[in-house]
């Protein structure tokens, strides 16, 4: 049996999904967090059933790719758990009507039940029940309330088929139901609502946005550096380092194996050993920043800030051929380009997806890369790290403006629901953070190890010198970088953090470090992002995007090299 979890965007389907299956899926307080579909298993009356978390939609006529996914899923469903936002019943019922017309057995979860009273709404469950002859269960998914009932009542789901109606008839019916079953009393705005308004009105919202962004980055760095300085570095340098070198020295006091395993240097970045650099980069350098980034991001997401940022930046984004929602892709991309690239699915047109993906690859370094840039370039002063970011931001804006001019068509306007602020639920937040860190480790550690191993093997085989000699002259002349940077660019395709780390042993000047960090961001996406985009954009568009990236990298590296005296 296939059970579909359906409903409007941002009503808590994913939270219910993880409550029902015990599986971990990402949920946030903005519409469009679920863009593909997630499957899980649940047990009903001793039988196994498949539960599918369908992306949120407002109606069965699709507007975007994510909507299409949802509508298609409907053909396969045997039963629908219709998740309805109890605080926004009228709008939610439109989809409910459309779903009932399909004649698929349904039960309704009246979610956010706890918020109903706070919002001055009175709902008459019995009356609601008498209109829809299906089980209706009030739930508070984030707190787990009502979930048990929901499972118990699945067996009671019956098809309650209504006739196919016109738009007007549907709304008229909904109007009738609402009039009888819901009373809304006026009440004063709460503090959170006032804050919500203040952060969306441009006059107050823009200063608030600057403050929040600045404060977030300061906090990310503070927490990241704190973890590195007081936990990771002491662990690696005082405990792990000496131990591992003793252990390796017993069977391999010197020679090829010794060098592959722990390298020649006692510095964890410079040694390029599998057991030293291979573990220090993902755990010692990147993990602290990934942790602090997702801690802050998850809070902002669940609090509901990001849609407001999307509204405030909509104007600027339009000049780059995008609309405000793309700012969410960019912010996700600052953590890891992969979820950033996936989130472009919610953008409506191919043109927007192309521009958003290209800009993401060109000017958004992921947290892994940022962490290593801060580690290497930050030694010479944070202003150089800012310089790299300022250059990337400028490139992003320029390339966006140019693409907007060149590509035919306009960017659709923003049209999105702004969810109210919620104080995040601690358990949900912690779970989400844990999930993201696990995802990072699962993906990063094997690739970093593979990268470090490749560096060693290719160096021993003489391949690194070989391509260095071939591509070196161009890089030396245009970017002013030594030819040893070529291997780093090669490895950058695998992992950007390892690539930036490879600059460590080269002892570059600040100018060279800034140029190398910039071009390593711009020139090409890492392999994980590359394959996602290949799938999302198709071969031709990805080829175009890649050409843009490589040309921009050549150009920008050259410009910095010649302007910086």
């Amino acid at each position, binding site marked *: 049996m296939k059970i579909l979890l359906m409903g409007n965007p941002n009503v808590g389907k994913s939270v219910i999904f993880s409550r029902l299956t015990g599986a971990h899926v990402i949920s946030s307080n903005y519409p469009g967090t679920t863009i593909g579909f997630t499957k899980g298993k649940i047990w009903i009356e001793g039988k196994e059933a498949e539960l599918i978390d369908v992306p949120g939609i407002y109606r069965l006529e699709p507007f975007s790719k994510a909507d299409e996914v949802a509508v298609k899923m409907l053909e396969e469903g045997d039963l629908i758990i219709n998740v309805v936002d109890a605080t926004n019943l009228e*709008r939610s019922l*439109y989809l409910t009507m459309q779903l009932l017309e399909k004649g698929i057995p349904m039960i309704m979860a009246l979610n956010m039940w706890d918020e109903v009273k706070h*919002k001055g709404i009175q709902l008459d469950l019995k009356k609601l029940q008498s209109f829809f002859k299906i089980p209706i269960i009030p739930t508070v998914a984030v707190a787990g309330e009502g979930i048990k009932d929901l499972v118990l009542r699945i067996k009671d789901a019956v098809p309650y088929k209504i006739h196919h109606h016109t738009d007007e008839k549907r709304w008229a019916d909904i109007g009738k139901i609402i009039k009888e079953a819901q009373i*809304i009393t006026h009440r004063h705005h709460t503090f959170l609502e006032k804050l919500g308004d203040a952060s969306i009105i*441009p006059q107050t919202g823009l200063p608030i946005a600057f403050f929040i962004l600045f404060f977030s980055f300061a906090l990310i760095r503070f927490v990241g550096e704190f973890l590195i300085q007081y936990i990771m570095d002491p662990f690696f340098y005082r405990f792990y380092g000496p131990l591992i070198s003793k252990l390796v020295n017993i069977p391999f006091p010197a020679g090829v194996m010794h060098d592959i395993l722990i390298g020649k240097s006692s510095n964890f970045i410079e040694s390029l050993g599998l057991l030293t650099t291979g573990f220090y980069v993902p755990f010692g350098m990147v993990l602290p920043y990934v942790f602090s980034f997702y801690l802050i991001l998850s809070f902002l997401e669940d609090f509901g800030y990001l*849609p407001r940022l999307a509204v405030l930046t909509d*104007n600027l984004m339009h000049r780059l051929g995008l609309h405000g929602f793309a700012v969410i892709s960019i912010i996700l991309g600052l953590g890891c380009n992969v979820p950033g690239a996936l989130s472009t699915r919610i953008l409506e047109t191919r043109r927007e997806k192309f521009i958003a993906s290209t800009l993401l690859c060109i000017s958004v370094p992921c947290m892994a890369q940022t962490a290593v840039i801060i580690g290497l370039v930050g030694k010479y002063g944070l202003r150089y790290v800012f310089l790299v970011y300022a250059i990337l931001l400028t490139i992003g804006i320029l390339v966006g403006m140019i693409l907007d001019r060149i590509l035919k068509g306009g960017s659709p*306007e923003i*049209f999105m629901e*702004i969810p109210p602020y919620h104080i995040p639920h601690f358990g949900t937040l912690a779970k989400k953070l844990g999930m993201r860190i696990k995802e990072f480790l699962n993906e990063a550690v094997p690739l970093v190890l593979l990268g470090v191993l490749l560096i060693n093997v290719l160096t021993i085989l003489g391949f690194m010198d070989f391509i260095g000699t071939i591509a070196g002259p161009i890089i030396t002349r245009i970017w002013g970088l030594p030819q040893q940077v070529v291997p780093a660019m090669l490895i950058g395709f695998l992992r950007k953090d390892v690539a930036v780390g490879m600059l460590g042993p080269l002892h570059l000047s600040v100018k060279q470090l800034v140029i190398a960090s910039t071009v390593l961001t711009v020139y090409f996406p890492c392999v994980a992002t590359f394959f996602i985009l290949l799938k999302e954009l198709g071969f031709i568009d990805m080829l175009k995007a890649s050409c843009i990236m490589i040309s921009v990298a050549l150009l920008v590296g050259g410009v910095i090299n010649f302007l910086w005296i």
Partner: protein
Amino acid sequence: MISLAEMKVNETGVIVSLAEGDQFQSKMNSLNIRIGKKLKKVSNSILKGPVVIEMDNTQVAIGFGMAQKIFLEL
């Protein structure tokens, strides 16, 4: 009758007409923006940025161009 784009912040109005166009109307409809609905303007646009409205306890951001196509009676 004025358009949503021309309305002032904190003013309340009832939607009396939506510009022609099936796609536009169906898009508005999906978020319950229809003739007869009462809404309040929460935020004005700057430099033709989006406007924000509040309706039935929900806020919706609407691009400036779309806001010009929604007409209300104050």
